């Protein structure tokens, strides 16, 4: 059965449907990661997005339960040049995800790079192109959207109960890899919903602000909580968590034209001069800044990839040190943080 992607600018890409029937509305984005398709579609940061893989062969090594970054796919649709099944496509189908194969993905990427991320509709099966374009145009743009509440946990839970440091994770759409890395580094981990209060979090040795979807700017209450926390408990922000910390610390964020999504993005650590090859997935970024606290910078566009407020024991990174998928170069960021938190607690 055929299907198509209709973009808000009227561009149409046709393909074969390889998973669920129906249609999906969202923001069309692309990722350049060559591995980790299952991790990507289950990453809550991809909520309300239509993901295009630039890697052409997707699904080669099937699926495995342990690879999911959350309990379900969050991407609305998957666009591929060449899907390989049946493991992968059946898995998508069972989870109701619309997916197309045979898409001219490179042309789609070049279009998104030029026009910026565009809203779109993926239709699996027959449908009116004009109607699809209309629906895409009617869909709310990503800028200004608060999506974290919808993907955050409803109530707190304990992920791992023993460890040398007690860490609270604020779940704005947290990836399992973050929890795994924290626990692996020796932290006892408790996960809280996005609207947890500062008082509750302060009881812990450290607070990790997780990744998550959508625009950070409208998350006013969450930012207020972060502001309260600064200086009272060690903080590590990742991705959306980084952006919230940035806003709380008087930096600004903005919507990137088409985002950074992939597993090969170079980030320079200004203090050491070292370059980290990082896993990235963000559509918003912290405005380039010469401020001292801006420790990490994207070598692609100069956006702030890391912040450090040593006196307040607060730091954050825009990229994904937990990987999943992507390189492990930045694993030590989480490990070092847990170490420091544990050390401060012991002292």
């Amino acid at each position, binding site marked *: 059965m055929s299907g198509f992607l209709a973009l808000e600018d009227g561009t149409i890409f046709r393909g074969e449907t390889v998973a669920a029937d129906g249609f999906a509305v969202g923001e069309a984005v*692309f990722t*350049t*990661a*060559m*591995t*980790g398709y299952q*991790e990507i579609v289950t990453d809550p940061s991809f909520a309300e997005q239509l993901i295009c893989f*630039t*890697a*052409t*062969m997707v699904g*080669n*090594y099937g699926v*495995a339960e342990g*690879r999911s970054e959350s309990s379900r796919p969050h991407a609305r649709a998957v666009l591929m*040049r*060449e899907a*390989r099944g049946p493991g992968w496509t059946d898995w998508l189908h069972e989870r109701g995800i619309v997916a197309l194969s045979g898409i*001219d*993905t*490179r*042309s789609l*990427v*070049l279009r998104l*790079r030029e026009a910026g991320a565009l809203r779109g509709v993926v239709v699996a099966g027959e449908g009116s192109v004009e109607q699809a374009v209309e629906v895409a145009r009617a869909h709310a743009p990503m800028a200004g959207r608060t999506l974290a509440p919808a993907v955050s946990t409803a109530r707190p839970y304990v992920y791992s109960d023993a460890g040398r440091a007690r860490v609270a994770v604020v779940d704005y759409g947290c990836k399992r890899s973050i929890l795994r890395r924290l626990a692996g580094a020796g932290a006892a981990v408790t996960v809280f919903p996005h609207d947890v209060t500062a008082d509750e979090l302060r009881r812990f040795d450290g607070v990790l602000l997780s990744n998550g979807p959508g625009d950070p700017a409208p998350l006013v209450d969450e930012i207020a909580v972060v502001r309260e926390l600064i200086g009272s408990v060690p903080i590590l922000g990742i991705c959306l968590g980084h952006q919230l910390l940035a806003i709380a610390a008087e930096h600004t964020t903005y919507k990137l034209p088409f985002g950074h999504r*992939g*597993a*090969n*993005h*170079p980030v*320079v650590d200004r203090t*050491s*001069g*070292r*370059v980290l*090859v990082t896993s990235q997935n963000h559509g918003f970024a912290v405005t380039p800044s010469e401020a001292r606290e801006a420790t990490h910078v994207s*070598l*692609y566009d100069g956006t702030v990839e890391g912040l450090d407020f040593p006196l307040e024991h607060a730091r954050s990174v825009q990229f994904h040190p937990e*990987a*999943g*998928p*992507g*390189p*492990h*170069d930045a694993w030590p960021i989480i490990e070092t943080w847990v170490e420091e938190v544990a050390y401060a607690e012991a002292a």
Partner: protein
Amino acid sequence: MPRRHDLESICLIGSGPIVIGQACEFDYAGCQALKVLREDGFRTIVVNSNPATIMTDPGFADRTYLEPLDLEGVTDVLARERPGALLPTMGGQTALNLARELAEAGVLADLGVELIGAPLDVIRRAEDRQLFRTAVRGCGLQVPVSRIVTTLEELGGVSLPAVVRPAFTLGGHGGGFVETVETLHQQVERGIAESPIDQVLVEESVRGWDEFELEVVRDRKDNVVIVCSIENIDPMGVHTGDSVTVAPQMTLSDHAYQELRDAAAAVIRAVGVECGGSNIQFARERETGELRVIEMNPRVSRSSALASKATGYPIAKVAAKLAVGYSLDEIPNDLTGTTPASFEPTLDYVVVKFPRFAFEKFPGADTTLGTQMKSVGEAMGIGRTFVEAFRKAQRSRELDGRETWALDESAHPWFQGELARELDVGGLDDLVADDFLRLKREGWSDAEIGARSAATEDDVRARRRSCGVRPVYRRVDSCAGEVEAASTYYYSTWGEADEAPPRGNAPRVVILGSGPNRIGQGIEFDYCCVHAAQSFRALGYEAVMVNCNPETVSTDYDTSDRLYFEPLGLEEVLAICERERPDGVAIQFGGQTPLKLARGLETAGFRIMGTPFDAVDLAEDRERFGALLARLGIRCPEWGIAGNASEARAIATRIGFPVLIRPSYVLGGRAMRVCYSVDDLGAVDRPVLIDRFVESAIEIDVDAVSDGRDTFIGAVMQHVEEAGVHSGDSACVLPAPSLSAAEDAEIRSIVETLAPALGVVGLLNVQFAISEDAVYVLEANPRASRTVPFASKATGVNLVQAACRVMAGERVSKLGLAEGQSLEHVSVKAAVLPFARFPGADPVLGPEMRATGEVMASAADLPTAFAKAERAAGRPLPIAGTAFLSVRDADKRAVVDVASKLAALGFKLLATAGTAETLETAGLEVERVRKVTESGAGPSVVDLIRRGRCNLVVNTPHGSGARTDGYLIREAALVARVPCITTLSGAAAAVHAIANARNEGSLSLQERIERETRAA
């Protein structure tokens, strides 16, 4: 960290002649390195014995030395030039081994030369098995359980199956997979003999495990990037050079891939490569995920060349910059211009590499693939899907015969699944646009579809086009479209949008490359293509390159204005020409490959630039060529064309034996034989050419450039071996030493007559045989020949450039070339043969070309140049010791002269009965030894050679009949690395050189050309 300012000049070592396991990828690497070092203001010095390389062009370095790549040769250059540093990571294993030798001999310390890129301790840690094992284990990884062995006594308790790997050999040479105690002992003995440090590793076999390679780059700040992952479709057990490989890896999950990535970073750090690239190989058990680090090359490699072409990330260029102090974030990514080299390329396409074998050249050789590399070249295909890339690579090999490749049963099931789908077409008329799109996206060619639907390739193409199905072109940009790139590196695919079609009004020329390296068509033609691109660009043309060989300089995206990495088939080339609308297509530089396309291109209305196809046909079609020669009054050996055995007998009898038999349109003497009697003629199932074989003739090669009226004779070269040995296998001397003034004049006059008569506009190569004062034309090739690079370097005249100017419309007379210049130096080109790779094949020279590469040496006189060339070819001539002689009856008279000269030089003579008798009769003192097949007491000649009791072997094969004894002698010499000369003319030249070679210091190409020019 910016460029180092404490260094002023840097010496780079090349990889020498093309051999199996070490091909033009190191010319590509060396060229890139020289280019960036010069841009950075370093004075550059290059040493490489291979004249067919671009890196040894006088314009590529400040000083170029075509000197033997041995301790003596390089020491001499270093002493003369006193560079601040030596960069050994661009010249393969040859350069790395030499650097180690130079360091260990104290040469570098004495001369104050710093080793950059890979310091001595790094080379040792990567190359010495024990040190490597310790380093790998130190970072928590495993190597296969193994043991280092220097004698057979140390083999007790080794578990089988096992792999034997000799230390410090090319492409795993001398190693192998063994399952029994007996084969273990044999292989270890051979391995110890092959290893320059008499050491082999016997290790746990991981045969059948999946095999991966990672290309890693690291800088002084400890930044590490993985440029590319490569998966071998043939699992462990087959040398990676012989495997079909794919990039990026296809079967690993992110978790498994990142584990490899971490391991690669850990290994490069543990071994200590601080500023450069490395290739690290892994074996991975498919089910358990167990990992073994197999090996690491702390230098650029064949795989890094492949990775560079696969990703657009120029590893050698980056590695050279790292070696002189830069860090990765300071080096820009060429393709994007805006992002740094400290990122990891991401691919939105798939790349497949296919090896190209040449077993047909080595009858009797074992064709089983194992841990020792046997392929002579490779082709790469790029497609949006795996199968598309796979089939493009597969057909890019241009096989002469039948397909012999089959997917190994132990290959990963994913590959089995992808390749399971057969080509399924009904009648051509039933195919509609969607069918064509599907077939094309699966990588099938028009010819393949035609073969399955009882239609011709042309019919399929016409039908496909009428359905509106045409290829589109995509850019290789290293970033999957994420960053805007101005890349001019393209591949084709189907059913998508076309990207960045050519614009502008500059005249345009499409240059067709030579495809995968093979015996008879190698780097020499790539040299010509690269020069053609440079020359046309200098003339104001846009040069568009088409080629599919990832090892080459021609497929560097910098070489041309646009690069199409595509199979050199008519389908692909026509499509490119339709897109480019060139003013002309240059077919005369890429060997035989473009000639096969010429007719189709002309038919489609594209202009062949320079010599038209009809001239090629006129020269290749023996009837037409014979008639032309007759009309011009030029002598050629008597000949005839036979369609069957009885005709062959009749013709051979008419013209008289011996005769030379061959099919037409061949390069490299494919299937060419000398027949001495009717019995030798054998079966004839397709038309063959039969020529009278001019015996004991001097063979002459001429390279010339003509504008269709006037002709410039670039070089007149004489072969050392007599006619009957393929010109590509024969040593060659410039200027020709044995020509009389009259013969020289006659040869020149024939070429000057022939060139316009054929219609040559561009390059022409003519081969002559001179016998009893008569000059015969053997053949004419209206295209670039194998000797063009050698001739250009020996004379200092860039023949390809001259040809391009003529093709663009200039007159030869206006090129300012000095005709008939007398040279101050003698240059010798010597062939390098791969016999040691093909046990079972007779290592004897004949009309079928088997050389993989060549070396060049120049000196003030012939013996000195010849001795140096032999040294450069890895066969240094002995100056004393024992010489063994055994020649066929026809050579008995002439052998006396060779033997007496050897005796006069103090050599002790050994000979088998027949030859001994001849020598004794001539009054020489000879010790008789028995042949293997003769019974008797005492050691046989083969025993003596094996025991190292001979320093020189002269053994000429009989024209016909059993070759058993001769074969055993030659094979023993090969294994014992004793120079073995199989022609009497070769022996005479060798003895002359032994007697008269002088010690002569090195001289750079630039200085030599300057002297020649001054002399002229």
